[in-house]
């Protein structure tokens, strides 16, 4: 099961690399989103997928699954959410101010004409 999830994570990271190497700002942002999802899958797999009971203190349960990767996962999801939202706002501002969403044209020192 872990091997399967790791392969899925690898495919997602590969897809995100393809998206981030394209020239459109929106594709790049979607690429960062998929990258973080792939890496979160890896993080989840690293604690071992569900093997025991839920991690709540109970004398009858002998084996618990590891709660720590799930806690870390939630933290990273929240952070990624905030980052993606802010990045989309910046992308809109870049498009409005510089008049392009092509990263090839985001070079050099742009002229301030206001």
């Amino acid at each position, binding site marked *: 099961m872990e091997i399967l999830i790791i392969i899925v994570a690898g495919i997602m990271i590969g897809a995100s690399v393809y998206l*981030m190497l394209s020239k459109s*700002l929106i594709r*790049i942002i979607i690429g*960062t989103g998929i*990258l*973080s999802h792939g*890496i*979160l899958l*890896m*993080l989840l797999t*690293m*604690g071992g997928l569900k093997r025991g009971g839920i991690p709540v203190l109970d004398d009858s349960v002998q084996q618990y699954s590891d709660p*720590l*990767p799930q806690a*870390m996962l939630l*933290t*990273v999801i929240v*952070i990624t959410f*905030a*980052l993606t939202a*802010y*990045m989309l706002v*910046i*992308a809109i*501002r*870049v498009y409005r*101010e*510089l008049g392009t969403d092509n990263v090839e044209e*985001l070079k050099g*020192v*742009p*002229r*301030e004409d206001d």
Partner: protein
Amino acid sequence: MTDILPILPMLVPFIAGIILLAIGRTNVFLHRVVASLTGLLLIIISFFIVAYVARYGMVVTHVGNWEAPFGISVVIDMLAALLVLATAIVTLAVVVYSFQSIGAAREKFFYYPMIMFMISGINGAFTTGDIFNMFVFFEVFLLSSYVLITLGGTKIQLQEGFKYFLVNIIASNFFVLAVAYLYSAVGSLNMADIHNKLAAFDGDASIMSLIAVVMLFVFATKAGLFPFYFWLPGSYFAPPMPIMTIFGALLTKVGVYAIARVYSLFFMDNTGLTHQMLMLLAVLTIIMGSIGAIAYSDMKKIIIYNILIAIGIIIAGIAMMDEMGTIGATYYLIHDIFIKAGLFFLIGFIIYRTGESDITKLGGLIKIHPVTGWMFLIAAFGLAGVPPLPGFYGKLFIVTSLFENGHMISGIIVLLSSLVVLYSVIRIFISVFWGESMDFTKLKPISYDKLLFSSFLMVIIMVAFGFGADFLYPLFDSAAQSLYDPASYSVYLLGVE
């Protein structure tokens, strides 16, 4: 008291930031007052922490009373305490400098709260004892830095801000990946606990070399080491001077601190690979930085490339991981925070006064600003490491350590880089302050007493830092001890606080 003490450096600016947000956009004067009072308070707290750590040793708080390897611990050893102190001093100077330089529009749009949140994140990254918590604090100060780099919305800021954003998001994602690998290999997130487990482990630890490479990719991107510095000159060039100062003086140093901490605590198994890699990248960083520092005639670019040279020198000291090298590296690290802040301040003053940043269009300023001119010369000598200014002692220790360990070529490159640094900064001094006088009627009629206050404060602290090197030596010895003798960092797990 000791329970709350280690948390204060991150808590105080955080609360100040929330208060500033609550004040709202209308009262800029109140923003200034709260921000500078927070700076002062931070300086007092960090002086107290340094004195406390010097007297009683490392100070530890287990947040929420969870025992050490399970909960998050906040650990301040001497290295973290000194960095927090330097951060506090630079914060106050930047806040005061901003009064007359950042402009009312940016001040209204929550400039000071963002500075406060960023300082909170930086202090958190310095003081935390937990690797995942360090990631969270990295995100805290990076999010504030994304806002600061685009604040104002000029074209260059948006364009370079987006690239800065993208590079750092990718690096942060890989930070999570490295933590995931580390967790699966070691099964702990507390840095001292990881060290203890790895030190007690005598099987095959070659997976740690892989983690070392991933971690190096992450922190080298943040710090601006050789192959990953490509974003740094462009992005740091975009924002206004006070923001650029706090980026150049502090943000890259957090990356260096993280490399030092992680490489001393985790990767002591295969140092032939990991630390050699660090050494090679450091030397290449110095070379690339030197080329950039000579190539440009824009003052901002010259100093930005000087950041790279300093990063390379500090990392070279850290890569040696012996007593001599790490003492030199910690001393040079603190020195570089002050000197870079001072130089950025002085150059910012020249840019705000003349409206030009190209040294070929400036000249003869010493007739109008003699004191500033000589201060700039002192700062330039300090950066290059002319004795008895502090850059000299740091480089002396690092180069001695390099030669002792048989890295002749690296040592010679570090020494030669001093000449390049001296040349690049003296070139600014000669063509801006000496030379043919520019048209003085074009000077902007700005008020600049606070700009000069911050600049001179930094230069004076830097000079005092150099003359007090003998007096400060015990502090840096104990700061470096947690790097070259990582077992001394993890003693708090044994319950002997």
